């Protein structure tokens, strides 16, 4: 299932569509303020891009860009960003996740500080969701193969 598919058409299309998919996912994350979208949706679309890469180019090609270990680290980083912004608000003298206090740090009006805080939180959520979806995908699609099989594929 995770081997390289020797299908020229699917491989080429995946190659061509993948960067656009990722840019679209980033657009969805960044423009959650003005149109539907946000961290959850963008993260899932990012993960779908990696799914397409695994399906077309095989697991070994994908591991160069996103391996299980990297996914674990990124998911932790995502949650850390979310919690870290909350703790930053605590340090600056507000409540937990009260982005209005960030205005002292960023030198903008409180409303825009809250907008920026929302953006940071969305990025954290997107990273976490992307990494977790990739992890679940890797877990399910490699569960049948033991570590020995992996080595023989390499």
């Amino acid at each position, binding site marked *: *299932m995770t081997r390289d598919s020797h299908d020229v058409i699917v491989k080429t299309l995946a190659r061509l569509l993948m960067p656009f998919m990722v840019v679209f996912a980033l657009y969805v994350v960044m423009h959650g303020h003005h149109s539907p979208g946000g961290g959850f*949706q963008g993260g899932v679309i990012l993960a*779908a891009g990696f799914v397409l890469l695994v399906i077309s180019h095989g697991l070994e090609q994908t591991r160069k860009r996103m391996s299980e270990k990297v996914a674990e680290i990124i998911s932790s980083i995502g949650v850390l960003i979310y919690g870290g912004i909350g703790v930053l608000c605590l340090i600056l003298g507000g409540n937990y996740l009260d982005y209005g206090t960030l205005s002292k740090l960023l030198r903008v009006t409180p409303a825009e500080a809250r907008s920026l805080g929302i953006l940071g939180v969305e990025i954290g959520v997107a990273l976490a969701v992307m990494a977790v*979806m990739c992890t679940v995908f890797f877990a399910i699609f490699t569960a049948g193969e033991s570590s020995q099989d992996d080595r023989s594929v390499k």
Partner: protein
Amino acid sequence: MILSFDLILLLFVFICAIAAITIRDLLSAVVVLGAYSFFMCLLWTEMAAVDVAFTEASVSAGIGTVLMIGAVSKTKRRSND
């Protein structure tokens, strides 16, 4: 809300749900479940919940069906009921 769409789509969702649990071939059931989530997305769009529809669209088209197919490929395809 658009009443005519609502009625038709609820009917479709019902058909898909019943088909998904009665088909014995698990892979077919998963495919029908994909159609089910399409209609769910349409239903939420029709109820003006754009963000929810967006989430459902990306989740079902990108990950959900793929995970199901992966699980079926790692286990057995036929089910006894």
